[in-house]
């Protein structure tokens, strides 16, 4: 059997890659995909704990996380479309109207 720590390690690596992606990428769509990657890494942790504790609650949490991710993607992509209409760019550094 695969030990629990292996799953947790893979989840940590994927989450960290997502964080690094948010830091180095400037394209707002790719930023969004990095957020999805991080959500998925957390899902992997939840499912593996669910398996190793023999409790189904973790999988329920994953279900709700997926629903939230779907809602977030829909609203976020609508915001991206509105931003692109007004600014003609997807670079997050160009949308700095609220910055001093």
């Amino acid at each position, binding site marked *: 059997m695969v030990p629990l720590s292996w799953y947790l390690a893979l989840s940590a690596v994927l989450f960290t890659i997502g964080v*690094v*992606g948010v830091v180095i990428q400037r394209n707002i769509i790719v930023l969004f995909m990095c957020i999805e990657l991080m959500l998925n890494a957390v899902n992997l942790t939840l499912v593996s704990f669910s398996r190793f504790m023999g409790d189904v609650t973790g999988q329920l949490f994953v279900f709700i996380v997926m629903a939230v991710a779907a809602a977030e993607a829909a609203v976020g992509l609508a915001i991206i479309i509105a931003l692109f209409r007004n600014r003609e760019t997807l670079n997050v550094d160009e949308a700095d109207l609220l910055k001093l």
Partner: protein
Amino acid sequence: MDQIALDIPKLMFLAFAGIAVVAAFNLILQRNPIYSALSLIVTLCVMAALFLMLSAPFIAVIQIVVYAGAIMVLFVFVIMLLNIREEESKVDRQKYLKWAAAPMFLALLAQVFAVIRYVDAQAPPIQSPNAPGVNPADSLGTVESIANAMFTTYVLPFEATSVLILMAIVGSQLLARREKKEDIERIEEALAVEQSEQELAHRTSEKSNEEVAA
């Protein structure tokens, strides 16, 4: 772990983990967002395989249908809709962040591994839902067991999720809406009428001024 005996599940896990990590790196290093989206789909499908290994078949199917299906189609659709060319950033204020990324990556990983080193859990044996005389609701990860928990103990979070999705529908409609053509024409007409009225008033006042001067 004194010795790591490699059996079939471990080899499968290593293969899946390798694919997932490579695809995730490809996701953040690509310049073209469509390649990023494709590598994210690869990662999501591999995660579904890992969910199957963790005896969560329902979550694995949902992962493929909702994530790799619905959400990623939405992403690809928006990328195609906006038809973005590869654009070089005009302002690159965040240049120093790229140099901070690698040490941050290592520090975060080191922290997590420091904790994970002490994790030593054994997976409890679970009943196969297909075994004779087994109620599927008692087995982990089946649709029956998840539905059992969802509609009894966790019914309130479930209903809250439906309200959240309703709000997301309304919000995205409102955000992505374009002003209707006839609305714009009506506003322009109203503006034109107002402008001509103002001009008229201006002219009559000028005329009366001239009369007063005369």
